[in-house]
């Protein structure tokens, strides 16, 4: 077994996904098969190889530190499921 159901439950909490028991079972089986497959990467010697984070050679893509127009508060809130006083309203955070 490359991954246990308990580990899958732990990952689901990290991923902020409320999975059902059936989903957890199915995912345990799927992830086990996939992790088993990707383990073949261990056959490759990558000692001293620099990881590729960016496929084209590029560095320091900066711009001038000048303000530019952005959204108005109305635009930013235009899709809010719940908005009040120019802010997104959610459940209480601090008790």
């Amino acid at each position, binding site marked *: 077994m490359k*991954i246990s159901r308990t*580990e*899958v439950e732990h*990952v*689901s*909490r*990290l*991923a*902020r*996904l*409320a*999975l059902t028991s059936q*989903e957890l079972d199915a*995912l345990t089986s*799927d*992830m086990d*098969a*996939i*992790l088993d*497959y*990707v383990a*073949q*990467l*261990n056959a*490759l010697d*990558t000692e001293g*190889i*620099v*990881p*590729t*984070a*960016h*496929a*084209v050679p*590029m560095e320091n*893509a900066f*711009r001038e530190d000048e303000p530019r127009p952005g*959204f108005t508060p109305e*635009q*930013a809130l*235009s*899709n*809010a*499921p*719940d908005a009040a006083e120019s802010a*997104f309203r*959610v*459940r*209480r*955070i601090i008790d």
Partner: protein
Amino acid sequence: MEIYDFTLTELRNRLDRREFSAVEVADAYLVRIAATNPLINSYITVCAAAARSDAAAADLAIASGSAGPLTGLPIAVKDIFNTAGLRTTCASRILDGYVSPYDATAIARIKQQGAVMLGKLNMDEFAMGSSNENSAFGPVHNPWNLDRVPGGSSGGSAACVAGRQAGAALGTDTGGSIRQPAAHCSVVGLKPTYGRVSRYGVIAYASSLDQVGPLTRDVRDNALLLQAIAGYDPADSTSVNTPVPAYAKSLTGDIRGLKIGLPKEYFIDGLDADVQKAVTTAADTCRSLGAELIEVELPHTAYAVACYYLIATAEASSNLARYDGVRYGLRVKDATNLLDMYMRSRATGFGAEVKRRIMLGTYALSSGYYDAYYLKSQKVRTLIRQDFLTAFDKVDVLLTPVAPTPAFALGEKTDDPLQMYLSDIYTIPANLAGTCALSLPCGFSADGLPIGLQLIGKPFDEATLLRTAHAFEQATQWHKQKPAI
């Protein structure tokens, strides 16, 4: 010949000669869409009123002599592009109610150049899939055989162009999502070099792999649409500030002396016999046009799928963390606290494949596993990229199949995610390497299903890719075939 049978190039000529108006073109397409969409299901949103109004504006521009290359041309776009004032779904329930407050740069560019946007196209949810069966809006059906998948994730885009429901389409490609559906639907699909086209406003799946590209009926149309969208964008700091050549100039028809590499790792067991035959015949056609065929090696090919499904899922888990019910989209109504709101909104809104990839990616990045999975894959990615750079020292383009088989049946691979992932073997490496690649029609299987040819080019050398594709296309009739629908 109906109006919807003309290529973009033909429409441009006829519109400029006032053979018909842009409004007549838009109307012809809207009627065509209404008639065929119930069968193909390529459109999620049709913009009938806006299309007619854009078309009327295009007619004024044409009449006053101020028309540009795209003025009045009918284009549809994958529902992954933000389009101001219009709903954008990414084929997911988690974006229920979301209306884009802005245009993606690629959209702004085509609109500014006078294109008429017909609507938003179906896709695999969050661009995760190879069959367009992972959509909250139902699967797309291949216009060549409605029981077959069109490919994915830009399945709606490819089916739309093949089914003559738009003059052309824009899609995105992260592991093959333009090229593979293009092959399954017999259209031309290009994934530009990473950084060639702005990703600003494109809903992100895997940020180091995603690229925007055109799907069209022929190579000339593809060059036209690439010209319109390519180029540096200050709003996308991964877009590269190098000049955009005049792509149409490359369409010379001349590939004498071109060195074409055939990577031996791509022609192995598991490749369907009809696909093998069509692709090797295509290589012979290129030789008869004066190109030289050279065998090359891309030794790390077999590791590409594993590498991709760790990097892409890791990046996706990060990109999709923003869907939390706070600022837009689905929010469950009866959440007891904030965490509950996040967990149940996401569980309710995301489909099964999206959840699977988020879970894999989260695991690959998690404490204790990061080095073994994510970091390891990034090193393997370096080896894969190096394979291409080494090959490109010897040859100008690579020629390969696009998919191991023609389009499979709807429902055939949905039970086995790993089987589905393995079918991306030929397209994934170009995304990992960051270079450009194109799929174009090269034949049909014994049961009439399209087969695509892949050409892979050097980074930022879309010109040679288009030249090669165009020369092959003009020496064959595949691009003239149409499905019966």
